[in-house]
């Protein structure tokens, strides 16, 4: 089989929680050899969080959160407080092309793995450091937590139901945003290194990276003196534009799980198509609805009419009928919908590999395909320290006796 695009690229992964691991997941997806350095003395929080198989907690290898975002990586454990651990970390750095970390500002320096030291070890390294606030500026030592990075970015002030308080977006969105941008920056730096032989340091503030996602709001504020108002899922230029209730047949633990279909009408022609599909063809040319301006005056009424139609149908049926006619629509998917989505399954998106402790479970896969250098998830997420021996022996060149001695000294905790 053809090799993936980053075959032969080696990554020393000093990341944890989500933003950093999401970055190195991309590199693993692309075929890089990613060795994640963990510690038994301070286990990555995502190893401890739910979901677990059948919601039974226990151990550090059974979290779906960790197992989703660490597919295809190897794991070694080092105790940063043990005297010989740094020597192991340094050998790993010398082996690698890329070093990634997302500890708080200053932590890598205190571990003895600051950029100046790293580039002494290997001058052409590409080193990426992700921190919450960046490594300079008056707030550089502020504490950043995933969920708080969304309000900090400005997204919360722009997101919410009309007239309601600011809201979250449902996930620690600044993390994968930073991770994906970091992966891009690392690849751009690798491109430069392939051309010139030069490595470099990439400094990233998750906050600054997240501000990219509110650029439209910043522009509006500067252009009109006002920020966009929170307005639910409505859109200025598309009416209707939102989620509409659908028939739900799913009951879990005695609770009806609600179902929704997302419908957007981009122009008057799509409005006419929608009117046909919902059995109200007379609305197409009705001057009360035929133009965007008219529809904006009657948005509540229109949403009511559309909801009346959608609520009698399953979301997938409603979406298919609208798409058949040429109107943009989709199931507002919950995670069961996603997992069972015929389209995603036919495309082979999901990954199910045998994992030592959770068996075969579906995980989200790689969102791209490459014709000449196919990408695939080659192994499930590692058990904690699963590859310590293998990596120390085969990658870093320690003898069996040396590994045993390191273990006896507590360096591999």
């Amino acid at each position, binding site marked *: 089989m053809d090799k993936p695009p980053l075959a032969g690229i080696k990554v020393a992964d000093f990341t944890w929680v989500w933003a950093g691991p999401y970055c190195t997941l991309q590199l693993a997806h692309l075929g890089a050899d990613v060795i994640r350095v963990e510690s038994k003395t301070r286990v990555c929080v995502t190893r401890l969080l739910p979901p677990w198989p059948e919601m039974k907690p226990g151990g550090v290898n059974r979290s779906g959160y960790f197992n989703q975002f660490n597919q295809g990586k190897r794991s070694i454990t080092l105790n940063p407080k043990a005297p010989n651990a740094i020597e192991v970390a340094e050998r790993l750095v010398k082996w690698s092309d890329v070093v990634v970390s997302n500890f708080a500002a200053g932590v890598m320096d205190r571990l003895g793995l600051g950029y100046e030291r790293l580039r002494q070890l290997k001058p052409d390294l590409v080193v990426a450091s992700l921190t919450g606030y960046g490594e300079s500026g008056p707030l550089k030592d502020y*504490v950043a*937590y995933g969920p708080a990075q969304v309000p*900090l970015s400005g997204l919360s002030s722009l997101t919410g139901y009309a007239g309601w308080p600011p809201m979250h977006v449902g996930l620690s969105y600044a993390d994968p945003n930073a991770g994906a941008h970091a992966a891009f920056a690392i690849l751009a730096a690798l491109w430069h290194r392939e051309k010139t032989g030069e490595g470099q340091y*990439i400094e990233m503030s998750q906050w600054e990276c997240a501000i990219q996602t509110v650029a439209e709001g910043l522009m509006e504020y500067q252009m009109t003196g006002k920020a966009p108002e929170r307005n639910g899922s409505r859109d200025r230029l598309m009416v209707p534009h939102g*989620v509409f209730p659908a028939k739900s047949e799913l009951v879990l633990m005695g609770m009806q799980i609600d179902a929704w279909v997302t419908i957007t009408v981009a122009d008057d022609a799509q409005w006419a198509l929608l009117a046909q599909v919902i059995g109200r063809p007379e609305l197409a040319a009705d001057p009360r609805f035929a133009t965007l301006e008219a529809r904006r005056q009657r948005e509540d009424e229109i949403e009511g009419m559309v909801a009346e139609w959608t609520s009698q149908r399953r979301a997938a049926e409603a979406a298919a009928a609208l798409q058949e006619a040429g109107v943009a629509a989709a199931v507002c998917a*919950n995670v069961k919908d996603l997992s069972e989505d015929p389209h995603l399954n036919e495309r082979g998106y999901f990954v199910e590999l045998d994992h030592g402790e959770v068996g075969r479970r579906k995980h989200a896969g*790689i969102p*791209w*395909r490459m014709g000449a250098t196919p990408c695939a998830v080659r192994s499930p997420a590692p058990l904690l320290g699963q590859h310590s021996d293998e990596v120390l022996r085969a990658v870093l060149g320690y003898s069996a006796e040396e590994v045993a001695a390191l273990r006896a000294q507590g360096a591999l905790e």
Partner: protein
Amino acid sequence: MAGALTGLKVVELGEMVPAAYAAKLLADAGAEVIKVEPPGTGDPARRRGPFPGATPHPERSGLFLFLNTNKLGVTLDVARPEGFDLLLRLAAQADVLIHNVAPPVMDRIGLSHARLSEANPRLVMTTIAPFGLSGPCRNWRAEDFTLWSAGGAAYLNGWPGRPDMPPLKTFGHQAGLQTGAHAALATMAALVGRLRGAPGQHVEVSGQEVIAAILEMNFAYWPYAGLVAARYGQRPIQPLDFLECRDGWIFLCCVEEHQWRAFVEVMGSPEWAGEEIFSDRLKRAAHWDALKPLIEPWVREHAVEELYRKAQARRIPFAPVSTMGTLLGSDHLKARGFFVEVRHPEAGALKHPGPPARYSRTPWELRMPAPALGQHNSEVYGTRLGLPASRLRDLAQAGAI
């Protein structure tokens, strides 16, 4: 100084966000990007706004101006054979062609990797499609919110404890931005691979799949536990909520017990904080209805900045609910020189977000504002492709450029 991607040549056929954002990431890192737009109307992002004074103008759309910095702009009707020929000539000189032409339109105009690789076997062609290039939904239409929903993100956002409130869109064009960022990284990987011996190739990116990949722990709930993450579930830990200050909103975030204890001290150790029902983070979540009204009056006496500073001084990770005004005025972001003012001949001076990542050797740079429609036609077609002026006139008259 040169950027990381100086020397890389990119052709972009972008409509709205995803391909344009991917190409912006490449351009801001130093690549030369030629953006191809339909003659007359241009990229629909030109009609999207926001606009100065809320008055539509194709050269003043805030979304377009943000997404298209550092690019050369040409017009070309790729649906016409003479237009498509010119596209092939542009692709022949490029390293990358990145686009989000909808799959049914690709079929109609014959835009395929097979044809482009004939013109340039070393080309990396990146196709961004809403649902990818295979499967039953291949030809489905999608706006940004369609994909945010189809990928599972919209279902996750709602109001804790309020199942009557529907799933909610996140502001802006988040599906497009994420799809663009992932397309940029996949494209770069193909380019790095090419320097290491791989041929040119086709990279395909699905917007729905990108969103399904960023759902935090939520996706795993179904395959691991047969559970569906719901938008209206109460938060399992508190405080983790929005509260109103004197002059705006703050996000209270006490994930660890020591953070809560420090926060209680910051509040002056009120008596109620010692109640058994608030004694750990799970209990505080279970009794948040009782706890929140006790904290609210104290929070309301403070200014956002003041409370943020007080909390952070005790290592409590509160964050302000930043507004567009507080972002632009932030001393921290100013000290880091984050926002970059770009002067645009039609839209005036506007502050753009600065680098998403800072390179020590190859600086990120906004070298020029977004192009006017067709601004670089003669430079690109005349100087680079060597078309004679008479041919350019004919193409323009025929409406091809």
